[in-house]
């Protein structure tokens, strides 16, 4: 087990001048860093200071969305959080619906919850895969990415795209559930339950993983709250907080699920909590599939504005077409905020409109950007080989952090 040499408070301001320390640049072209450069000051094998240099994938999503119509921000917001696109789309549309004063019908809310939970499972599997390759086990990477494929097939049946769905629009969703979807989903969930048992032996209970992750990157409850960490990393430190329970959206009020939390806040707990959350998401999907209400998938106001050709297409092929006003939506002046619990944590949205075609202020914060204190404060004092363990356990996705 590795002991902490420095505590959290004085972590970032240790002066590293002088030639006692080696400075390693774990740069963007490094198998252990993803799209960012981590400047690490090493004293022997102990990490003394970490300075993450991010912004390599800063695609100016806020600046662009302030120069385009409201509907065009959906694909931009999705491309930023690629492993978890439905939650980006859902958080933007929930906030936009509050600005427009729209309300999605119950069937659309259930479809949104269904898509969100399937995407949460694929996002957690993506995180487990990356965590596996950072610890060196290519089998877990292959298994996790292989087991993502049945869920991606489900979303392909539902929405027609592999990852970037653009499935949720203001007022409802774009496609209804195809016929064979329910049986296919039950088969996939059954397959996943069997596979989770195999993960236990190779990954969760693997002695090498246990020795690499227990008591590594420990962040206790008070520091987790003080540093504003977010998502499963927060619940792994014992804080009972989940936006789906505390600020419910879509159909999460009438779906009962349990929020798993652990106490020790180290890399091993963050690993366990992701497996627990996959089980919870599978439970939610079963409930949503069981009591999915009938009815329209777009709200009344938009349905009335469809022209006859579009109405015929909607009745035949259950595909929502856009009425003409989608191209230039003009909400009344005012502002709205919205929060959604994505796979990696909580997305926060703040929209302000001045009555024009373009949003006046389009501000959103993604979970990975709020997990940055893990590098500067928590990774200090452990060894160099612990940095990939902490980086993987936090499930940090740089394009999402750079927005």
């Amino acid at each position, binding site marked *: 087990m590795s002991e902490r040499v420095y505590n959290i408070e004085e972590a970032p301001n240790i002066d590293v001048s002088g030639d006692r320390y080696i400075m390693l640049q774990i740069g963007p072209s490094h198998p252990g860093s993803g799209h960012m450069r981590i400047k690490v000051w090493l004293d022997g094998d102990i990490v003394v200071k970490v300075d993450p240099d991010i912004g390599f994938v800063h695609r100016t999503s806020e600046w662009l969305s302030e120069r385009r119509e409201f509907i065009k921000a959906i694909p931009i917001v999705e491309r930023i959080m690629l492993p978890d696109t439905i939650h980006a789309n859902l958080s933007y549309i929930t906030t936009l619906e509050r600005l427009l004063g729209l309300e999605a019908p119950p069937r659309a809310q259930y479809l949104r919850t269904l898509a969100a939970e399937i995407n949460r499972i694929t996002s957690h599997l993506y995180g487990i895969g990356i965590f596996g390759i950072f610890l060196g086990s290519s089998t877990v990477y292959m298994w996790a990415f292989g087991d993502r494929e049945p869920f991606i097939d489900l979303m392909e049946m539902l929405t027609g795209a592999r990852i970037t769905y653009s499935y949720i629009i203001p007022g409802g969703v774009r496609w209804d559930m195809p016929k064979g979807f329910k049986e296919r989903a039950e088969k996939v969930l059954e397959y996943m339950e069997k596979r989770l048992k195999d993960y236990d032996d190779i990954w969760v209970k693997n002695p090498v993983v246990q020795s690499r992750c227990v008591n590594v990157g420990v962040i206790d409850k008070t520091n987790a709250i003080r540093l504003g960490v977010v998502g499963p990393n927060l619940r792994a430190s014992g804080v009972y907080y989940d936006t789906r329970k505390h600020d419910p959206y879509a159909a999460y009020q009438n779906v009962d699920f349990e929020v*798993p939390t652990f106490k020790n806040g180290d890399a091993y707990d963050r690993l366990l909590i992701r497996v627990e959350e996959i089980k919870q998401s599978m439970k939610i999907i079963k409930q949503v599939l069981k009591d999915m209400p009938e009815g329209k998938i777009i709200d009344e106001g938009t349905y009335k504005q469809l022209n006859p050709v*579009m109405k015929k297409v909607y009745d035949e092929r259950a595909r929502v077409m856009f009425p003409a006003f989608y191209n230039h939506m003009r909400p009344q002046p005012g502002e709205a905020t919205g929060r959604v619990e994505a796979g990696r944590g909580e997305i926060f949205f703040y929209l302000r409109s001045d009555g024009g075609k373009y949003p006046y202020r389009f501000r959103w914060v993604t979970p990975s950007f709020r997990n940055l204190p893990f590098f500067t404060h928590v990774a200090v004092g452990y060894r160099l080989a612990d940095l990939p363990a902490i980086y993987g356990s936090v499930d940090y996705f740089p394009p999402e952090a750079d927005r």
Partner: protein
Amino acid sequence: MSESSAKERKLRNPIVGHIRALAKGFKYLVEPNRMTLDYPAETMKLPPNYRGFFTVDDKKCIGCSMCEMICPPQAITMIPRVQVQSGQTVPEGAGQGKKTKRPVVNWGRCIYCYFCFDICPVDAFVPSGVHDLAFYNDKDYRPSYEEYLKPPEEPYKNSKKVVSRPDLKRGVGYEPAP
């Protein structure tokens, strides 16, 4: 919200862990459960509403350029055309008739979100189900209107069409498409 009980975690004894891990690895070594799609030899048959490459139905389109306005990456440009009696459109000077516009998609910028499909008042876009094209230089992926009208052809037409189905014993298996 009640404070839900924090879960306890059980660490497994290392020796047992080593044996179980090696046993599981060996089980997967001998079990016949590959999930690989041998791509050039077999290709996936995708669901009907898959968003791949698409073309426009020349007769149905009324040239209202709504698709050009809503396309988020502005990949659609409207080409001025002339509509002759037979409904076909011909380039600018080639015939007389009503002057109209037709959309052309620049594949290099299109993000396949199908917003143009959904805003088109006459539903004139035709999906083609082809999803795996690649190009050598940038002139190829900016088609002219005539090239854009021809539906793109499958690169591997004679490959076996399969559909994936998860099954408990063999992992994710593939069966010939119905």
